[in-house]
């Protein structure tokens, strides 16, 4: 690895100050499962300062409140998420994602914040966050701002965060009544692979428990960023939850996908899998919605 410096700020203000003064040369370090590997492989030659943010209290928050929803610090590792009773109970789709990010040892370190900011198009936490209508709290030299998670990734490896800014936490809305969400991923093995395609769906039913009141469908690894597919949601909202609507939503998602062929999958395979995963995610979301 090229030579790097390391700092470990204790407060959010300190972290922001360090990042602001170092600019492009600095990169926040949470779990390191992407960053350390990238540094070692020479893919981040400009980064000479690694800022370990794991001591900053706001980044370690994991708090659920029925009114406020879930606050998840950007540096909370997956293993803490999967063992948190409130998340297991209230946000099973988050558990879907957190338990699939790499294997056990990766989950010992990897974070949702790192996963979002590394901005791989195939990131396994991002479709879930898109589907749940997540907000991102971002701190920078000009203060703190909150934006929808969809506004963060802008391309492979790129986010809309400005120089000196860092992701602090995620805010997930409290689970609406009669709502459910599901995240699914297709990989050739059973673990340890980057997604060929992944997808998340969220539904909320009307009081009749049949009509869809609200919906979000997100697909990953088939475009430069995760896609929130409005056209798929449009096929669902106001319609009866079931095979017919799900099929049309899946087709809309397939049409919105812009996959490439690479060593992980082909265009045709990916497009086909979008249809399969969106349909299956919707079925899973419906089952969870009915249980709530």
């Amino acid at each position, binding site marked *: 690895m*090229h*030579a790097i410096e390391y700092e470990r700020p204790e407060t959010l203000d300190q972290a922001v100050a360090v990042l602001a003064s170092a600019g492009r040369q600095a990169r926040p370090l949470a779990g*390191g499962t992407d960053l*350390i590997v990238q540094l*070692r492989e020479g893919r981040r030659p400009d980064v000479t300062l690694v800022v370990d943010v794991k001591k900053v209290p706001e980044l370690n928050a994991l708090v659920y409140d029925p009114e406020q929803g879930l606050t998840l610090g950007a540096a909370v590792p997956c293993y803490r998420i999967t063992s948190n009773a409130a998340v297991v109970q209230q946000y099973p789709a988050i558990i879907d994602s957190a338990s699939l990010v790499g294997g056990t040892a990766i989950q010992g370190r990897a974070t949702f914040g790192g996963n979002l900011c590394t901005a791989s198009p195939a990131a396994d936490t991002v479709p879930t966050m898109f589907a749940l209508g997540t907000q991102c709290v971002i701190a920078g030299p000009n203060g703190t701002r909150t934006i929808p998670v969809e506004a963060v990734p802008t391309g492979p490896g790129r986010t809309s965060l400005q120089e000196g800014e860092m992701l602090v936490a995620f805010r997930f809305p409290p689970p609406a009544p009669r709502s459910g969400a599901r995240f699914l991923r297709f990989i050739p093995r059973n673990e340890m692979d980057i997604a060929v395609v992944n997808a998340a769906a969220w539904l909320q039913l009307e009081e009749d428990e049949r009509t869809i009141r609200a919906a979000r469908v997100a697909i990953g690894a088939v475009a430069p960023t995760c896609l929130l597919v409005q056209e798929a949601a449009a096929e669902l909202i106001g319609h009866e939850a079931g095979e017919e609507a799900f099929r049309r939503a899946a087709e809309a998602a397939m049409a919105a996908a812009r996959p490439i062929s690479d060593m992980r999958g082909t265009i045709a395979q990916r497009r086909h899998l979008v249809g399969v995963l969106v349909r299956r995610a919707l079925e899973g979301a419906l089952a969870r919605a009915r249980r709530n």
Partner: protein
Amino acid sequence: MTTTHKRLVSAEINGEPVEFLCEPRQSLLEVLREVLGLTGAKEGCNNGNCGACCVIMDDRLVNSCCVLAVEAEGTRITTIEGIATPQGLHPLQRAFLEEAALQCGVCTPGFIVAAKALLDRNPDPDEHQIRYWLAGNLCRCTGYDKIVKAVQRAAAEMAGRAEAGAAAETGARA
């Protein structure tokens, strides 16, 4: 381009306080092996995909190749060298020997550390849970069959079940 100043890091490794010097670019794996002489953790891939470098850090399983050594400051680390005690081998180590769950043995330290982390939090895992937990530890020699049986055997022994011995028989006898 050249080296930076080394940092002094204090950590607890295998129950003992340890201090070491390292550059920020050195991974925990590199420091364990090249600075501290703890060569039990192995480098198989250096990018978090094989588990041969597994250690337990503050009670959770991590790939030490994906941890910077400087991040170990103030943490408690258990490596394979800390699994046995002066009183003897850990039940997992004995089970791996009894079940012939190693061939070349290079992945074995990672597996034993990972399996210990599993049994520490779930003393009675079923076969699927064992395979899922260990999916990040690659073995190219055994096909995993005897490794899974060894973990089951150790779990049974640690739970003090009498059928531990009978369950150890690998394959039927004609």
